[in-house]
């Protein structure tokens, strides 16, 4: 049997995960194509959960598709759209369908998305969701009632190493660790010195850290993220590098930047692996891995 994601995380090898953005609508062809392209190249594939509060095909649906096609999914669960009953119920379905990895997130605010008048739920937060999973593993639901059949998940969370101020984020990081997070996928990192400093701190905890790598496709995108995405800071020299690329070449520059960064992280053993986010350009992930010198097999060395 193929090793589980948890086994891969604990193998000591450099771990690569990536993510799939499901479609807005029922045309899942492109999503399936991305799944087929990546499922055997990475250790596991996240599926985003109405990312940026934009209504889409759900994470659970994408994860089931990954499962059916022989990949290992990471179910992303935000607390924005479901109360504690719905969250627990979804974990029950996920478990019975062979999904074994969950990423617990608070979720973006409703007004940043495309259903601005919807009610944000936030009955639980990410820390409480991690504990809910651990409680359900012990055979009890959040109401303290017995479950007829428990769950078992490799549970993870996120952290933003470039948030300012950083201390409140680190306190929350520690709460997540105490609440059962086994791995962290970070928000995009670009400043490796800052990240190294974060890792020096994070190494004290018994968790695996996968650095978030977001593919930059243009100088415009980089500037946009600096302006609008909390916790992301693309340094000026990278923006200049993208801007100086000849027309149509910026994407390749972006692939180069991402690949080189991964290679450095791996070479210097800065962290336990990377989580590659190509945001709509998932077909480019194999190229990034190639530049990074990562072999295209699940268990990296």
């Amino acid at each position: 049997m193929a090793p589980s994601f948890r086994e891969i995380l604990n193998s000591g090898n450099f771990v690569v995960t990536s993510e799939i953005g499901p479609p807005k609508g029922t045309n899942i062809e492109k999503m399936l194509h991305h799944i087929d392209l990546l499922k055997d190249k990475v250790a596991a594939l996240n599926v985003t959960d109405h990312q940026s509060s934009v209504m889409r095909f759900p994470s659970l649906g994408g994860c089931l598709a990954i499962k059916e096609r022989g990949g290992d999914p990471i179910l992303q669960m935000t607390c924005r759209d479901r109360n504690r009953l719905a969250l627990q119920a979804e974990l029950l379905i996920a478990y019975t369908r062979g999904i074994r990895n969950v990423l617990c997130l608070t979720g973006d605010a409703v007004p940043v998305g495309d259903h601005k008048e919807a009610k944000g739920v936030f009955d639980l937060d990410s820390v409480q969701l991690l504990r809910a999973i651990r409680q359900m593993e012990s055979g009890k639901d959040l109401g303290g009632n017995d479950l007829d059949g428990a769950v078992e998940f490799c549970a993870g969370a996120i952290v933003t190493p470039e948030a300012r101020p950083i201390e409140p984020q680190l306190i929350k990081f520690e709460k997540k660790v105490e609440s059962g997070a086994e791995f962290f996928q970070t928000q995009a990192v670009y400043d490796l010195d800052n990240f190294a400093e974060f890792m020096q701190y994070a190494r004290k905890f018994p968790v695996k850290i996968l650095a978030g790598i977001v593919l930059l496709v243009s100088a415009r995108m980089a500037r946009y993220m600096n302006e609008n995405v909390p916790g992301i800071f693309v340094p000026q020299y990278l923006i200049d590098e993208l801007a100086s690329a000849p027309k149509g070449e910026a994407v390749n520059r972006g692939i180069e930047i991402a690949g080189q960064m991964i290679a450095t992280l791996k070479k210097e053993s800065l962290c336990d692996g990377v989580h590659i986010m190509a945001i709509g350009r998932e077909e480019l992930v194999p190229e990034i891995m190639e530049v990074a010198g990562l072999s295209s097999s699940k268990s990296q060395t």
Partner: protein
Amino acid sequence: MKSITKQKPFDEIKEQLDRFDRVYITGCGTCATMTRTGGREEVMDMKGRLEELGKLVTGSTVIPTACDEMTEVAISEDKGAIQNANCILVMACVLGVHRVSLYIDKPVIPALDTLFIGVEDSPGDFREVCAQCGQCVLGETAGICPLTACHKGLLNGPCGGTNNGKCEVDREKDCAWTLIYQRLEAQGRLDLMRKYHAPRNSNVTLSPRMIKITSQA
């Protein structure tokens, strides 16, 4: 404590008054006067606008505190004009609307939307401070309410959307958890931020919320 209100769009008021041609207007001398949504001036302004629409305003009053039981007395003093109207337009918060409809057996139309319970930071700047959750945690959050001041009502610390001390929903809005962190740090009480808060009880008092207060410790 102040009930913070905002005047409804005039088109909505107009639509609600569509089938009434004789209107009596009441304002409120307390919160709605301070928020300049239902004081004497606003009542007079509304009177003018309704008359322009061809309505007959049979009378108007500004009840000292529309939410209390003295409202009954205030209203009885203008019985004739109220009799003469076929609806009452209330320029007070919902508590005033509620009072007025207890005492007057005519259609009662709210002219204001009640937004929240808040304080006035500087003239005209109102801010919600409490969502009446029924399990106050202010003692552990340096007096800043995470359920109200944090857009997502988070109890266990900031989300990833905090941006240089601002909230992801609005560049102008402070991130509640950055403020809580700063205050707790200044007070040497950061250990409180490390404490795990279990999921909230959303039904401390069942909706509709009611309680009988008896004298007890």
